[in-house]
């Protein structure tokens, strides 16, 4: 291991900066308004979570509802599916947005839209994911820890879009495994590691000079520097969920998602800004109700444990927990007992980080497909998250000097910009 004493760490960092060429631009100093949260844990229900079978029930319409029964929750008047009994006891911490809406009915464009606020279109512009935007705009809370961690695969993820790849997430493929390969090779001393890294950079000099100006090359050297910095950091511990008690681990549920939520808590505790965890399996085209019940089982344990754990550690106040998905599902139950995609109306959740729980914003139509009142676009939703962190959602950036200008609340030319749901905060 690289010794973790300060001078050594300092040396490694200096080296990483000077030799590997740390290209990270100094953070832009956006005036931070008052923030209600420091961190976001972003739970993505991948595949399209059925709003009708979870939070936005239709108890009076058997044809739509199918075999789902609601149960009362901690909040009078709010019912959720009986497949979420533990979460029902946490509803006073959670606010629901039942009027999410967009028009992208397929997974890839739907996910892209929810994660970036923009349509994928013909992929002329690669928009950054919300997490990358936050990575770029929110000052780092812990200099040794990557601010944006994603627990899940990167396939189809917009990542840093037109921002430098250095603003992309640190991907962790499995919470169980954590961050692998962070220790030196057997027989390699830290002195030799540093010396060899210098020599490697020297051997690479001609190539780097020839391709100076390429952002891909810059991102590669930047991430090497970040990796080396992380190797010498005490924050490596944050990636190791084996350090948690077996009871805590069991509380979250022994599922990849549950353990991912636990890892998210450890990272947030150490100053990560944005941690994203995916729960796949919501694409319930066949046997919707069985599928949703299975998914709820996982979600119920993990999310309720997360909220309780954050609360008991005094972290919930400053950690905004978000549950969202690429779209909801159709009111019609088809011949395979499945539900199709429905982007026109669906539900997302907000908890902690200054959110006053127990509220419900917006309403879907009686049939549960479109939005009946108070529609919330993805731009509105993401602007709300930026608002919680005290960031200016209308800070525009462009992929090219003369190109269109984008912000998390929409393009500069958009007639209507995303509006934060300020009334959901205390």
């Amino acid at each position, binding site marked *: 291991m690289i010794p973790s004493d300060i001078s050594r760490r300092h040396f490694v960092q200096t080296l990483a900066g000077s030799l590997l060429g740390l290209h990270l631009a100094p953070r832009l100093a956006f005036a931070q308004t008052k923030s209600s949260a420091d961190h976001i844990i972003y739970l993505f229900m991948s595949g399209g979570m059925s709003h009708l079978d979870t939070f936005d029930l239709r108890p009076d319409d058997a044809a739509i509802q199918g075999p789902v029964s609601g149960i009362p929750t901690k909040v009078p008047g709010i019912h959720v599916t009986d497949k979420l009994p533990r979460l029902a006891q946490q509803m006073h911490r959670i606010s629901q947005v039942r009027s999410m809406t967009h*028009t*992208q*009915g*397929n*997974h*890839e464009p739907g996910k892209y839209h929810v994660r970036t606020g923009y349509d994928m279109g*013909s*992929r*002329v512009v690669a928009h950054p994911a919300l997490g990358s935007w936050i990575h770029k705009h929110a000052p780092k809370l812990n200099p040794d820890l990557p601010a944006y961690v994603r627990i899940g*695969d*990167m*396939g*189809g*993820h917009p*990542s*840093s879009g037109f921002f430098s*790849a250095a603003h*992309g*997430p*640190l*991907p*962790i*493929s*499995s919470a169980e*495994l954590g*961050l*692998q*390969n962070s220790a030196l*090779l*057997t027989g390699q001393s830290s002195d*030799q590691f540093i010396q*060899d890294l210098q*020599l*490697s950079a*020297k*051997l*690479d000099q001609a*190539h*780097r000079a020839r*391709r100076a*100006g*390429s*952002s*891909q*090359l810059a*991102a*590669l*050297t930047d*991430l*090497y520097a*970040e*990796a*080396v910095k*992380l*190797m010498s950091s005490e924050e490596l511990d944050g990636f190791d969920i084996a350090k948690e008690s077996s009871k805590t681990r069991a509380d979250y549920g022994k599922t*990849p998602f549950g353990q991912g939520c636990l890892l998210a808590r450890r990272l947030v505790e150490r100053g990560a800004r944005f941690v994203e965890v995916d729960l796949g399996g919501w*694409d319930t085209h*066949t046997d919707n109700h069985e599928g949703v019940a299975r998914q709820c089982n996982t979600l119920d344990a993990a999310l309720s444990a997360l909220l309780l754990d954050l609360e008991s550690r005094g972290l919930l106040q400053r950690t905004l927990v978000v549950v969202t998905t690429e779209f909801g599902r159709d009111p*019609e139950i088809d011949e395979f007992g499945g539900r*199709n995609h429905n982007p026109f109306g669906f539900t997302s959740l907000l908890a902690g980080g200054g959110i006053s729980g127990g509220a419900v914003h917006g309403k879907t139509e009686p049939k549960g497909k479109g939005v009946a009142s108070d529609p919330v676009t993805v731009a509105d939703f993401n602007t709300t998250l930026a608002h919680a962190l005290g960031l200016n959602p209308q800070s525009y950036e462009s992929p090219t000097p003369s190109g269109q200008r984008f912000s998390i609340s929409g393009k500069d030319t958009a007639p209507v910009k995303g509006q934060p749901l300020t009334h959901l905060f205390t």
Partner: protein
Amino acid sequence: MNSPYRIASQRVGPRLEQKSGTAVRRLQCLVWWSFSGGLAAAPLDFQRQILPILEQHCFECHSAAVAKPKAGLRFDDAAALTRIKDEPGWDTVLASVKLPSGDADVMPPTDKGDPLSSSQIALLEQWIKAGAAHGSFTTYHHAAKSTVSGLGRKRLSTDAHVAAAEIDRLVEADLAKKGLTRSPPISDATFLRRVYLELAGRNPTASEATTFLRSQADDKRSRLIEELSRSDAYVSRHFNYWAKVLRAESDQAGNLNDAWLHYLKTTLADNVPYDEWTRDMLTAEGRLWEDAAIGFYLRDQKNRLAGYEAMTSVFLGTNMGCAQCHDHPSRPLSQLDYFKMLGYYQASHPFQTSNNLFKNVRRDEFAASLKARQKEAKQQGLTLKDRARRIADLGQATTYDFRLMITAETDTKRSKVPSTYRYDDLKTGQHLPPEPLFGETPALKEGDKPMRVFASWVTSPENLRFTHVIANRMWMKVMGAPVHGPVIDIMPLEKSTHPELAAHLAELMLACDYDLRRFQSLLMSTRSYQSEAVSAEQSAATQAFQGPVFQRLEAEQVWDSLITLIRSDIDPPARTEAPDFAFYRAASEAPSVDAYWKLIEERLDYEEEHGVGRIGGFGARAKTKVVTAKRGFDTMGLVRASALPSPAPAGHFLQLFGQGLRQNIEDQWSTVTIPQALTMLNGSLHEEMAKADSMISQALDQAPSSAAMIDVSYLSTLARYPSEEERDIAAQVIADGSRASQRRLLWMLINTTEYQLTP
């Protein structure tokens, strides 16, 4: 309206009020699609595009072929064509071909010949509106008629020098127009590594590199292209490529779908023309042992619309996704169009009802026998330790495996207006006769299989879009930037960055008869390809081809290059044995229920004796959800990516480097991440390389001097010799010649940006 399709839409007139279903709108769509898809959208070439229409429909009465051309009009001579402009006027000609069949004034007269197709009319109209110019055309030689046959009749040369020179000329013209110049020509060493990565999917070994670099042959570059195009490594590389495009998964539909992956590899090894294997897959039917290409359909048996949309994206370069739910907001692509063409796709469907589970045994009879066995097992409290229970389980599981099949209907009764149809002009459940998205609707005769008719339409040389899409795809693959818009959603030609080049490449693709190996080798023979690479930013800013675009190595390229340092038998044989389906076939064709159970018993004996699992008959493989070994480099075996499960499981090196999950078309990613850097710095790949029997250790052992060791290290990683300065540094590192010092030098080389980016 910011849509890139704005101009095309305007050209076809204002959008109609009525949402769908009118004949007028249909015609407008045809016009749009033929513009967007075809060569027609380029500045029209009279001789190639218009003359054939005139020849087909007009010459019989209006040419020098008849003694007295009707009304004194001729369409086969430049001077005569110019006269038509004044009298009767091209608008009159156009109006008369547009009249409905049977009209007294329609041209050609109803008794004389077939009316012009909608797309021909569209083409003619476009040509007339653009001024009815006939370029260098002088006069038509009627004697030469038999050599003329529609598109591609120019028959471009596929000689590498000629074809490459023509492409380079078009690229140069574009560069000159933009005030740019081509990047400097690349060295042999750069060429070597670039071509290896593109065609073989990996770095060359030190000895492969030495052979090429030392060769004095003038044509050594073209020879290398040729040699690699015919190598086993080519199949490995291109399997990886097509597995991403087709989202080919090992585990889809049970491991049985390995049969499809095997089909793809064999198809590539045989270099089957692209149009042929497209047709093969679209018309696949039966069970996996009858036609492994049904894997194409099985891939999406759980979400058929996703499969349909992927098919149109890949083969027609048309993203139809949004029209599943509503008319496209900016293109003439309606929800009705979507469901009409779906009619063909739905006529080939996965086994759903299980009526034909067995060939000879009645399903209910089998179900009763299974139920009896299961009931007995339960009553006796049997566990998996008891043979009777294992037999019952295997008997049930086997039916899950072999029931996979595709039934190709001969009717279109499944083609209906869906309940999700948003507009009022049609009723849910109403029959919908299938129609393709554009072009003429092929006749569907009694007994025709709709999917066969459709497959012919898709792959017809008349369907220019099909050809454009694959030409664009191959250009993108080799050059790193497309010529014709996104590969799965191409642009109207006139809106694309390089209309002339795109049209030329499509012609060249036709001249190659869809031989993708040949086509790629032509692209790689160009100076445009053999120039220094440019960054993605530069490529995006200039929209020109100064050289190929460099990028991070793809996951498989890094992995396979590292394996090259470890294994001496790096490339798996291109042709492997087909999965053995004998058991499944026999089981599905068992003459009676008793015979079935007897087969199951024998099978169980076999499996227990050989220690294989349920699907152990071909390539028994433990399902590995997450790679759990601490450093995860060799967990699945040190073999090329194409020999591993597709895709590799979460946590595998290939996943860390962006192989993607085969869920969306080409969902691989090339972002650089911290875990990648940590793997290259500290991963167990270095321990594997350091082993005495690794390829690189053996090569280093044979090196007679430390100078030779340095050469071997450089050639094995960067495929070049070091500069003097680099040699000095390397010499210091390797001064004592020890294994440890060799290992350090390799570590340094692998952790350069030069190693991790394409040359």
